[in-house]
């Protein structure tokens, strides 16, 4: 329990620190890039045809972009400590609302993609791990390399052509019902499964070579029983660490998939905000992503502690 509390405390501190550093870096980087923020905001709001110098100057004053960068930054930090992330310079919506709307869509997509990848990767990886070096394992290696190498937009379009256009089973794009989730989640999940299956296979090979596993087999226990009773639990630790990293990556937002399937995720929001120099949104997103990475790391650490007694109580092992 003490170890868990220590981990939570450490990660909470890391979360705040990383979030603020990322948000500050976002502010610096966006402002370092060449261009006039007021002009970019005017174009993002009204398009190039309507943007004129008077409008740009009006926006500069209204949004206080004429103040020094230091004042703008300290104002944002001050507000952030009161949980106020400000308003978008383009839409004038609250940044927190905007981030939550997009983040929750990304979260749903990421979890669905992860589930699909696990459903594919676990049996695939375990089978390869049980028969390493066999023809199935060799072919699997080739297939997974190919699937990892195929870009998401190619997988996505192939799935649309097969399942939406040819078979008419699933909708092409949108986010209205659970069926709209299947294609974008499968697009992400298939690539991820290919990768994860190799990690699972390696973990299973390692576990099957371990002394405790050999001992159980020598005691006369059946392969399936040893695998289910001891092997999978022990092999899951590196797999969970890998999945944690992948989840964090998915939660960053996968712009290509979001764009292809018109899924309102956070990746597209961040890209659009960077292009429009919508600084409060970029900073807010930086903070959120920083916190999210730390939260995922903390979750992975906690799960590993639950699964691995050596990490729960290092003294007991000596």
């Amino acid at each position, binding site marked *: 329990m003490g170890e868990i509390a220590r981990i939570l405390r450490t990660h909470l501190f890391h979360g705040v620190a990383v979030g603020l550093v990322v948000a500050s870096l976002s502010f610096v980087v966006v402002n370092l890039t060449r261009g006039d923020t007021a002009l970019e905001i005017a174009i993002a709001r009204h398009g190039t045809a309507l943007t004129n110098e008077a409008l740009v100057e009006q926006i500069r004053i209204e949004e206080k972009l004429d103040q020094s960068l230091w004042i703008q930054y300290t104002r944002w930090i001050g507000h952030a400590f009161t949980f106020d992330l400000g308003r978008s310079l383009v839409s004038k919506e609250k940044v927190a609302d905007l981030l939550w709307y997009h983040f929750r869509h990304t979260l749903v997509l990421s979890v669905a993609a992860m589930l699909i990848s696990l459903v594919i990767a676990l049996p695939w990886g375990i089978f390869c791990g049980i028969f390493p070096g066999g023809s199935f394992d060799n072919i699997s290696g080739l297939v997974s390399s190919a699937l990892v190498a195929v870009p998401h937009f190619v997988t996505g379009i192939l799935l649309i052509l097969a399942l939406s256009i040819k078979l008419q089973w699933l*909708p092409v794009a949108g986010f*209205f019902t659970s069926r709209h989730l299947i294609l974008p989640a499968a697009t992400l999940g298939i690539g991820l499964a290919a990768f994860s299956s190799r990690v699972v296979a390696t973990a299973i090979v390692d576990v099957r070579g371990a002394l405790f596993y050999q001992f159980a087999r020598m005691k006369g226990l059946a392969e399936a029983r040893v695998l289910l009773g001891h092997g999978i639990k022990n092999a899951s630790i590196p797999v969970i660490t890998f999945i944690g990293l992948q989840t964090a990556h998915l939660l960053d937002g996968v712009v290509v998939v979001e764009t292809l399937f018109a899924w309102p995720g956070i990746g597209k929001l961040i890209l659009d905000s960077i292009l429009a120099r919508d600084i409060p949104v970029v900073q807010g997103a930086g903070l959120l992503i920083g916190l999210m990475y730390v939260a995922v790391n903390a979750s992975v650490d906690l799960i590993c502690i639950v699964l691995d007694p050596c990490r729960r109580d290092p003294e007991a092992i000596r």
Partner: protein
Amino acid sequence: MLKKLSVIFFCTFFVLAAGQVIASQSDNTLVVVSPWKAKGMDPVISGFIFTRMGCIETLATSDGKGGIEPKLAKRWSVSNDKMTWTFTLRDKVLFHDGTALTEETVVKALSRVLTEKKLFKGTPVESVTSKGRDIIIKTSSPFAALPAYLSHYSTGIIAPAAYNDDGSVAEIIGTGFYRLVSTNGKTVFDFEAFDKYWGKQASIQKARYLAVPNGETRALMAESGEADISLTLSATAAERLQETSGISIISTAIPRVRLLKLNANLDFFDTIEERLALSLAIDRKGIAKAVLKNQKTAATQLMPEVSLWHNTRLELLVYNPKKACRLLEKAGWKKNADGIYAKGSKEFAFELVTYSSRPMLPVVAEALQSQFAAVGIRMKISVGKSTQIPARHKDGTIETALLGRNFGLVPDSVGTINADFGPIDSRGSWGALGWESSKLNKLIDNYLNAFNEKEASKIRKKITAILQEELPVIPVSWYDHHVAVSKGITGVKLDAFELRPYPEGVQWAK
């Protein structure tokens, strides 16, 4: 065990999904997909969605032929001094919340755009007031194009209840034939027919607008039957869908032009001969056919046929590389050992700036690069963001730029013409640089004073003749708007200015 579980999981998932596909197909909703999401719930920045879906309305609108016709204003007139306009509001118009359209509401909506925000450069509006059912707009100088500006989406009229206490807009409550019933983020808007609409009721009871940024996805949605109207498709996708059963493609030219912006302060472009030589080196038909898939989009003058400003009497821009070489030699340029024109040690070499948010621009830039190279002109392409063009115009560092310019903001392009080619001190950052014509400035003044169409038409011809002759910018190609329409609906008409609602007059096919 795991295999069994995964099979059960997938079967359940797909059975549920298939059930929902059937459910949605029985839902009679007109689905319109477009690349554009809302930027916020305010007509000033996102009115294009709500006017195009028939939810909010303006005082005037496009007549579909480059002219203007009444909408919420039933008529208008101008005083003898041509500086006071009177727009008489239509009676018995209700907002979607049941309240009546009042003069105060119209004054508030118009003032936000015309006097408080500086949205339309060069519109000399001084005040917006009301008297009875009349809206009085005073200008500081005659401005014949005012009704055209009142057809722009930003001047859409919304109900008093749509505003927050601080004057910002909280929701969209319009007067159109569709009322907004729900939104999901800024990409999905659901509408229902408004049964107390003052004009012709919508035939289809429900409509949905969905923003889909990827063009290929919009095309696939048309192909799968998910979208009834898929807007802004690429020429390639339109060509492919033409062969698909159940879909028809409607294409219309729009008043948007891909043009070469020149810095006439530079030695390369400071004479008409040099600019004309550059124009003659461009094989517009080749680019239009090979790159843009439609030879008719070759811009033989600045404005396409759909514009009031199209001039049938002009000597058209043609491709003649030999003449281009002769003109360059006449201007003192001689080919060096590398086959590039040069004056002394200075080569005819410049940088072209363009941007990728309009996907065809970099491709057209490459075509131009090779066509210029063929006559002995070296061009380097720099692809970045569109905002670098006004920024580098302002500091004078831009040499040339390839950009897509919208002359169809409102049906009369005089505002954009003035901002791009008018007096330098009031000129914007997208148009000509280092070029000015006092004759053209005077003609623009005269045009703004011309309240008689015959006179206005003559002035337009003179203005376009100057632009064609002096080439402060070089037109390359016009834009086409390709739309895929399901054969399950009828009555879709495209307005080149995109001011009229897409669902107007649309019904389910029998």
